[in-house]
């Protein structure tokens, strides 16, 4: 296990494991943490896993982790690896199985007091209209032709078919689809898994929450984002479902026998990789982008059904839910950085890390360009969520911030602490309505199974990776 003595403290919130720590490291490892979070991080194997990230061919500057880092598989969750496109690798295990797992927030024009009387009906209607739960799909399957269009067109394809407005795409990372996606490199098995799951939440830590803006930290930025105090907003957390899981599995499996061909030494088979520019690497990138498009389409279709449910309860004319932003936290993206005086194209692998572009960045919607990209950070049921904004200083983290609180307790342990019914009642006493398909599993995602989100966000803010704009408190949680 890595000990505190192995670490070099760079600033109050930034720590380094030097390259000399392990001969396999090509660059040092860096991570952001307060003293309190550091003590938690040292309890699991996340730093050992971060050291392994530093052995990936083509890695630039350092292997990086955010303050919500926790032990995962291959890379820790909350990890970032920026790999040079020219001579580096692509590693699906460094992205994770839930490709483009991410967040979307829709804002309403209403205050909490206006929505409270409708809350229970809203929750019932939403949970009827949007399947959630373990393996739950929709009754109507997409045809393979329809699915291929989604894989290549993402949320854009759905908007073209009438499932949303063009404005939705404007406020979605990448405009709701990555142009490099290719349906032909996605396996039949992955497609089969994706046919019935578009527009579904899934289970685990995925959720849909009705929230209220509880605190505003930056009034001017909040105003640009369309946020105000006591406002009701809706947060969606889900990804590419079984299709994305299968794409990742397919390419890790395909890459395993190729390490000899490309002279790559793997510290863990889960890091199976090939050169980014190789034919196999390019196919993987195209498939990965297709899965990312599926995830954006998934959140778009959920938004469509959410708006329908909203109208059913609040009146047919109430078409008032607007997308604030939609951003991935498990993804491989091509981004350009200035390295050693040269513009360098990097394949930034984010596994549990949210992109955090600064003011002025051309990939941010025009409306937000002066203030920075909205960075959407979910809490866990009883705990708050946050809206942050990207900063220039975040270049140090390859423009990445945390993606949540990060687990500290196993699901097994969490289940032993409290029953689902007790937790539901406890949350109800706090004014939080819970609708869940599998009540016994609810404690797996209890707030105490996670680090203190306030502390995690504070470290992100103090380290300059993003700034706090608003805190959101849950009113209702819909889960699988």
């Amino acid at each position: 296990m890595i000990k505190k003595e192995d670490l070099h403290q760079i600033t109050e919130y930034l720590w380094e494991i030097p390259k000399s720590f392990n001969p396999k490291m090509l660059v040092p490892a860096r991570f952001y943490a307060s003293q309190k979070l550091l003590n938690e991080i040292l309890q699991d194997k996340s730093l050992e896993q971060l050291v392994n990230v530093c052995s990936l061919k083509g890695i630039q500057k350092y292997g990086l982790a955010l303050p919500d880092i926790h032990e995962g598989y291959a890379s820790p969750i909350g990890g970032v690896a920026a790999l040079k496109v020219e001579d580096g690798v692509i590693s699906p295990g460094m992205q994770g199985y839930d490709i483009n797992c991410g967040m979307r927030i829709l804002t309403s024009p209403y205050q909490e007091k206006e929505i409270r009387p409708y809350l229970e009906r809203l929750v019932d209607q939403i949970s009827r209209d949007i399947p959630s739960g373990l393996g739950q799909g929709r009754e109507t399957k997409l045809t393979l032709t329809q699915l291929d269009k989604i894989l290549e067109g993402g949320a854009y394809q759905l908007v073209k078919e009438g499932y949303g407005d063009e404005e939705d795409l404007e406020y979605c990372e990448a405009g709701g689809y990555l142009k490099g996606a290719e349906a032909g490199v996605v396996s039949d098995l992955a497609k089969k898994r994706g046919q019935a799951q578009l527009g579904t939440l899934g289970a685990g830590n995925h959720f849909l929450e009705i929230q209220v803006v509880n605190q505003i930290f930056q009034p001017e930025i909040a105003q640009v984002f369309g946020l105000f105090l006591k406002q009701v907003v809706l947060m969606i957390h889900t990804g590419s479902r079984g299709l994305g899981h299968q794409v990742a599995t397919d390419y890790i499996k395909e890459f395993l026998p190729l390490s000899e061909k490309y002279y790559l030494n793997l510290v863990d088979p889960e890091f199976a990789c090939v050169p980014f520019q190789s034919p196999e690497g390019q196919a993987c990138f195209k498939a990965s982008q297709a899965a990312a498009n599926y995830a954006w389409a998934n959140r778009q279709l959920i938004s469509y059904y959410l708006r329908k449910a909203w109208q059913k309860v609040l009146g047919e004319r109430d078409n008032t839910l607007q997308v604030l932003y939609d951003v991935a936290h498990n993804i491989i993206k091509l981004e350009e950085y200035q390295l050693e005086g040269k513009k360098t194209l990097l394949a930034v692998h984010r596994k549990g890390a949210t992109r955090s572009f600064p003011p002025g960045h051309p990939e941010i919607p025009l409306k937000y360009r002066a203030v920075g990209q909205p960075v959407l950070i979910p809490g866990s049921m009883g705990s708050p969520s946050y809206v942050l904004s990207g900063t220039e200083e975040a270049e140090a983290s390859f423009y990445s911030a945390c993606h949540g609180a990060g687990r500290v307790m196993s699901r097994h342990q969490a289940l032993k602490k409290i029953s689902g019914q007790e937790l539901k009642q406890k949350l109800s006493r706090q004014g939080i309505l819970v609708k869940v398909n599998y009540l016994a599993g609810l404690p797996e995602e209890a707030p105490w199974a996670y680090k203190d989100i306030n502390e995690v966000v504070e470290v992100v803010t103090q380290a300059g990776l993003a700034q706090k704009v608003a805190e959101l408190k849950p009113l209702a949680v819909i889960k699988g």
Partner: protein
Amino acid sequence: MVYHWTVLTHPADLKLKIVAQTKAELFEGALEAMAHVLTKEPFPSSFSLQQELNLSSVNLATLLVDFLNEVLAQSEIEQAVFPRLQIKHLTDTQLQAQIFGFKIEQFQTQIKAVTYHQVKITQNSQGKLEIIILFDL
């Protein structure tokens, strides 16, 4: 039945240790363990679903992970659990088998994938085969 499995601690996902006398029993044990994670429903005495699998991989450990991933995908597509298998041919890199399963109403746990994280098969002090597998939840 000469296999058993135990749940090991992991902060986010599910880590299972499977111990068996033979390679075939290691596959049988791993399959049954995954089925118990997916559902709490008792397994029926006869199975309504049956599928053929034909897989190859770089070594026995990754072959086992590939096998579980294949079963997991079929489970999701069929909304079913497959707790039993009949092996026709097994080497360190190839598997031909039939899996047997039954439809369920709802999964108890969502497994996103069976990972290859540090996967390897070792022999314990009693001469039995052991593998630790991490499931991404």
